[in-house]
């Protein structure tokens, strides 16, 4: 598979301070990458570099082979790699859901009939058909965030970058938004780059990259990443509660794998142990 996103020795600095330093990163088409790191580790800067909102101080960022520092390619790059931000209120432009979703296709100058099709597809993909004519400010946080995702989907992007999309949501909204993100990745093959502070969300990814002080500290599968609890704590992060519990059990002498990151895994291996015992 091709690399859809490629960072080639990227450094980005504000004044004399390097926010990101010598970042090399490749994201395959269809991959689900989670980016972790404490506040100020450079995660948001990384996101903004991907679709040309920021341009590297040195090094290059390529989206589907297009150089983000080439101004002529910006529209094409932003169409390919869409962005969803943390605060749903601050990214909804229109006063009616469908008009907001239509915003990007309108900007692209598409035919009204084509816009209609894209809006309808996008709203269906996030499961908000019932709210198509509603005013965004009457929706819940989770619904607003799904409108924001639909607004990006209407560009038919191949990659969506989400910068802490669930940070301001309640658990229900969070799980609905995560459900949509997973579905887009699995069913539509859209590449996902998810920046998050929630370890359970990162556990759903194919790969986790951890930023620390503007450098890549860890870049590996969730299982590998979360099995090193001490490392995670020292990076200002944590491990999912399931992993915490598993580590406790291992300390108590149960023969479990320390890279258990999903509740079902732990439940299955415990039940299997019981069977074997009996």
């Amino acid at each position, binding site marked *: 598979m091709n690399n859809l996103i490629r960072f080639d020795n990227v450094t980005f600095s504000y004044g004399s301070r390097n926010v990101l330093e010598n970042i090399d990163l490749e994201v395959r088409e269809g991959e689900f990458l989670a980016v972790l790191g404490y*506040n100020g580790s450079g995660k948001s800067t990384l996101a903004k570099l991907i679709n040309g909102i920021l341009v590297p101080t040195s090094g290059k960022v390529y989206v589907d082979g297009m150089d983000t520092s080439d101004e002529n390619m910006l529209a094409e790059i932003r169409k390919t790699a869409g962005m969803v931000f943390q605060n749903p209120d601050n990214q909804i432009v229109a006063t009616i859901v469908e008009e907001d979703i239509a915003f990007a296709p309108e900007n692209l100058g598409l035919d009204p009939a084509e816009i209609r099709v894209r809006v309808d597809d996008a709203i269906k993909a996030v499961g908000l058909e019932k709210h198509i004519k509603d005013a965004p400010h009457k929706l819940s946080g989770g619904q607003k965030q799904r409108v924001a995702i639909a607004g990006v989907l209407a560009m038919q992007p191949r990659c969506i970058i989400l910068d802490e999309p669930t940070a301001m949501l309640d*658990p*229900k*909204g969070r799980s609905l938004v995560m459900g949509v993100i997973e579905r887009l990745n699995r069913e539509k093959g859209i590449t996902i780059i998810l920046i998050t502070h929630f370890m359970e969300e990162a556990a759903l990814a194919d790969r986790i990259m951890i930023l620390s002080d503007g450098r890549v500290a860890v870049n590996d599968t969730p299982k590998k990443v979360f099995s090193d609890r001490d490392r995670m704590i020292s990076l200002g992060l*944590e491990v999912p509660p399931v992993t915490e519990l598993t580590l406790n059990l291992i300390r108590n*002498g149960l023969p479990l794998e320390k890279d258990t990151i999903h509740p079902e895994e732990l439940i299955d291996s415990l039940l299997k142990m019981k069977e074997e015992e009996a």
Partner: protein
Amino acid sequence: MSTLRLENAGFTYQKGMPDEKTAVSGVSLTFEEGDFVGIIGHTGSGKSTLIQMLNGLLRPTEGRVFIDGDDIWDDRSKLREKRFKVGLVLQYPEYQLFEETVRKDIAFGPKNLGLSEEEIDSRVREAAGFLRIPDELLERSPFDLSGGEKRRAAIAGVLAMRPEVLVLDEPTAGLDPRGRRDILDVIKNYHETEKKTVILVSHSMDDVARYANKVLVMNGGSVLYYDSVAEVFKHALELRETGLNIPTVTGILLTLRERGLAVDTDIYTPDAAAQTITETFRGRRSE
């Protein structure tokens, strides 16, 4: 002795209008001095309305609110004085920062109480101490701080009023894991040293399970459960049925039990969960 008591309290928005909406109704309960109460419930369960009644921001449209035995709405002239016994930290409190320096911002509350300069100064220092805000930060503009620091400065602004009851609405929302831990540790430490009542509204069952000694579960504008943590999480199954999250480990234990493993399910911390699971394997229970 400082207790906060609600008697059949309720609140209806737009009362008497065609679009009136009852957010809370018939709530009777007592927050005892020194309790650490976690409030949980869906968005729209009435949590936010409830806590705004606690410090007199909203006047209940039915029932009454008592602080130390006095109805806070009895005597309007004393309303201000009484409401300040309950310190309320709203969601994303950093949006309330406005002064030139952190010090001045923390002093805003005490100043409104009409205290002397010396008293204000000592309260600012005390509150900054609780929130682990170093001295050099006090002279900075609150708008130059990091997200977590802003949050702590805003909470200090409420603590500086020395409330008898501290109410926090999702104080960790939007923070990174380290920021979340810091804030919760600060609150826990404050509760342990001051022995004052703390009420924490949270979406995270894991946090409530770890820090609170009592849990209030709101559902559809009324109280579903109000009891010790252990008692409330005995209803984990019912909680899950109403669509509320339960602590991750409790969820795992429930599933294990459903699938035939004899574990205890009224457990909500990873340590205790590890204990009961280990026991089923070693068969200690039969010994």
